[in-house]
């Protein structure tokens, strides 16, 4: 690439460019040698890398061979390569998916729930990290931190069962208390709007502690002298937070935001699946649960694959866009 550029450059004379070419070739040879040198010098490290790469190839790349069944009529025992393409030039399954009203609802629900998660859930760990950082008693800080991490280690199935015990309309603990105080039971889990709020808030409760770790690590990396200098200048606690801590963790925030945006159409399976019930299906059925109940349980593997592929492609587009925007805004992005 580099060589071509130079040759095509009209300002260079042919002789000069050929001279440079020779030089470059030499450099390239040296580079080749360097590569060998690196490999022989650090072979242990490369050997360590071998297994993870093998893992990626076997479990992440090889299965992609089957992506093609999104465009084909799947038969159990035949080679995927030999299968015929489905109707509409192979796009039959995509057309079928988009014609399905439940799928369109699932897209809407996925985007809405993910956006809400992002808007409400994204700032929570940042704020928590900032607060935690201001705590002066190390022991108290540790305890608060640990308590906040805990829910992360509960599976969504357990969290959903807890939610049911607490928020069920007639026997949930909270509603029993509400009724005992003379109030009307609150339909936390069986009325769409309430369900969404419950779903989002429980999600935040489960993950904000864990997600704050990254920010705390970033805060720890900020130069303490900045704080001291600010104190000398008479800056108060909030000034310091605003002008030192937040700018200090801004790159981290941006990277995580980019990654969250890349996942806007992605959805975990267990969280919505564990929380949904028949009364709120029109807001709780997201793409992953749709694929499970309609595609996998209905044995429509091609359709499931088509939907998954669509999800991934949209995810990549969002990721690239977000990354691009963040770089334009002067941040590093994720690559």
């Amino acid at each position, binding site marked *: 690439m580099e060589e071509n550029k130079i040759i095509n450059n009209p300002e260079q004379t042919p002789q000069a460019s050929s001279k440079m070419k020779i030089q470059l070739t030499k450099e390239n040879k040296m580079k080749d040698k360097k590569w060998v040198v690196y490999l022989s010098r650090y072979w242990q490290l490369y050997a360590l890398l071998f297994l993870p790469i093998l893992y990626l190839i076997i*479990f*992440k790349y090889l*299965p*992609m*061979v*089957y*992506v093609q*069944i999104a465009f084909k009529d*799947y*038969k*159990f*025992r*035949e080679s995927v390569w030999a299968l015929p393409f489905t109707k509409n030039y192979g796009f039959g399954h995509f057309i079928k998916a988009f014609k*399905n*009203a*439940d799928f369109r609802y699932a897209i809407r629900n996925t985007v809405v729930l993910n956006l809400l998660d992002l808007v409400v859930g994204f700032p929570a760990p940042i704020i928590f990290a900032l607060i935690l950082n201001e705590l002066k008693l190390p022991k108290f800080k540790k305890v608060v931190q640990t308590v906040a991490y805990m829910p992360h280690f509960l599976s969504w*199935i357990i969290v959903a069962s807890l939610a*049911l015990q607490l928020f*069920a*309309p*007639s*026997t949930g603990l909270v509603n*029993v208390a509400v*009724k005992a105080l003379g109030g009307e039971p609150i339909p936390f*889990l*069986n009325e769409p709007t309430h369900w969404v709020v419950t779903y989002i808030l429980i999600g935040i409760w489960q993950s904000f502690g864990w997600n704050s770790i990254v920010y705390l690590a970033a805060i720890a990396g900020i130069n303490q002298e900045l704080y001291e200098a600010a104190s000398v200048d008479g800056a108060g606690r909030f000034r310091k937070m605003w002008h030192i801590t937040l700018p200090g963790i801004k790159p981290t925030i941006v990277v995580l935001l980019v990654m969250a945006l890349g996942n806007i159409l992605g959805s975990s*399976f*267990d969280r919505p*699946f*564990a929380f949904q*019930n*028949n*009364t709120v*299906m029109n807001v709780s059925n997201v793409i*992953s649960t749709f*694929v*499970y*109940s*309609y*595609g*996998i*349980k*209905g*044995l*429509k*593997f091609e359709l*499931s*694959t088509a939907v*998954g*592929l669509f*999800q*991934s492609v949209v995810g990549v587009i969002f990721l690239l866009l977000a990354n691009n925007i963040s770089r334009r805004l002067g941040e590093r992005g994720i690559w």
Partner: protein
Amino acid sequence: MKKRVLSLVLAACMVVPTVACTGSDAANPGDGNQPGQVAVDEMPDTDAVAAAVESGEIVDGKFVETRHITVEVYDRGNDGGTDPTNNMYTDYIKQGMLDTYNVEVEFVAVPRWTEVDELNNLLAAGTAPDICVTYDYATIQQYAKMGGVLDLSDLVADNASLTPNLWSWLGVTNMYWDKDPSDGTLWAIEGKRAVTNRINTFIRKDWLDQLGLDVPTTTDEFEACLVAFRDNADTLLGSEANMMIPYSVSYDVGWRAATLIESYIDPEISDFDYYVNGFDDRKLTVPGTKEAVRKLNAWYNDGLMWNDFAMYSNGETVEDDYMKAGYVGAFSHNWDYPFRNGDDSINASLKRTVGEDACFIAIDPFQDKNGGHTKFVTSSAGDRKIFFPDSNDEPLASLLYLEWISDPAHIQYLQLGDEGVTHNVLEDGSYEIIAATGDPIQNSGFNIDYTITCNGLNLADPDKTVLSIAHSYAGIDPAIVKEANKIANTDARHEKNVNVGVIEAEDGMGTALAEKRDILYDMAVSCAVADFDATWDKYMEDYLSSGGQDIIDERTEKWNATFGDSKMLPED
């Protein structure tokens, strides 16, 4: 993305057992019934010599070399149960198969309440057992289409001489029930239902007595009982009055209120109307169902029903626990539901936790428009289906397993167990089941999970069977069971086999439509009274446009093509 699909499958594998391991009898054995095809073939020639015998593969009825097969068995996860793949009954089968045919048998457990999902995973992975059992024919069909199921037509016909018990027990009807009328393929054999009872309604006898109420015999009287339960919660439950549930259903309203729903259906409904609306057995689109659900909706809004019924999905035990704890006044379910599971049965639990006289009895309150008590019950086929996935390398050994398990003597031993341990012989010669603990415990009633060709008690002597059923529930008064059996058979209308070929529109729609159906029922029961019509119409529209209407249309079309203008099936 295969990756995503794979991860979902994995996620499902993780989710599914978590839910399933707490499973109770909440699901229904009748799930997914579909009228199959009428048997067209005659009984094959049993005198013909099977190819395996001719080739010397089998000598004196035994394999020369030891064969190995795997067999699916349901895991019901019941309290105090044994490992379904390894207990005294599996040992009996294993030893018997080894001695009779020189075949080693290995059992593979599949959670009962999520069997279809689990089986899907196993089939997709190519690791399904050699002999699979399911209630869901749609799954078999779907896999057959993808080339994942063995065609049994030649296998069963060619080896009829080796399988006399199988043929005599199931008969041509059940053997060939699923045989495709056009291309002759046979993907599954229908196991036989020994008892065709379906659903009963139950009420707390002790509560009726306590409040001085008679056993309700009409829908209005039943409603009056529910109102009385609600209004007297303080008397009946004391400090736990707020737990009162006069009438309980689960998310699966179509099954759990079936007796009420069926009473709103025209008892003289034509075979045609019954068939075109019969994609599943929950009667959603049958005329009359809407008015039945309106009744439930009124009850729900009057505080006569369990508020949280839609919150819990398949396999959760919350509702059963409420019944056992004595909070529930009445419910409808499988005809013998409160008697099942020995010491862990609902009635036995009630006796322990509430008091000696606390029990549920079967009642027959819902009248149809003619004053009868029509119940739409099943035929002896259309129950469990047995199929061999194409990963089965031992089709003959597998078929011989079915032969062995259909032997009346083997069925009888598996169903009754040992005298003095799992049953006593009574004076009239009938058998009484006693609750066993430890290894002899039967994980399923009469071990029906092992007698895969026979669902329900079936003894060598049919008279003793009838007598024994009443005695078959450990710890339950036989008079109560006898009455429940009688009620379940009152005005029973048996399902007929409609043979019009495969309905393409049903392909793979089973689970998607079942979910929509349940959502419709749940929303319609729990909405405000004023919103009932709007709610029903909205969700019905969704159900029909999502494939429900296509199925009705294709069924109508194929019925017309086969039977013309006649709305009734021809008499045999």
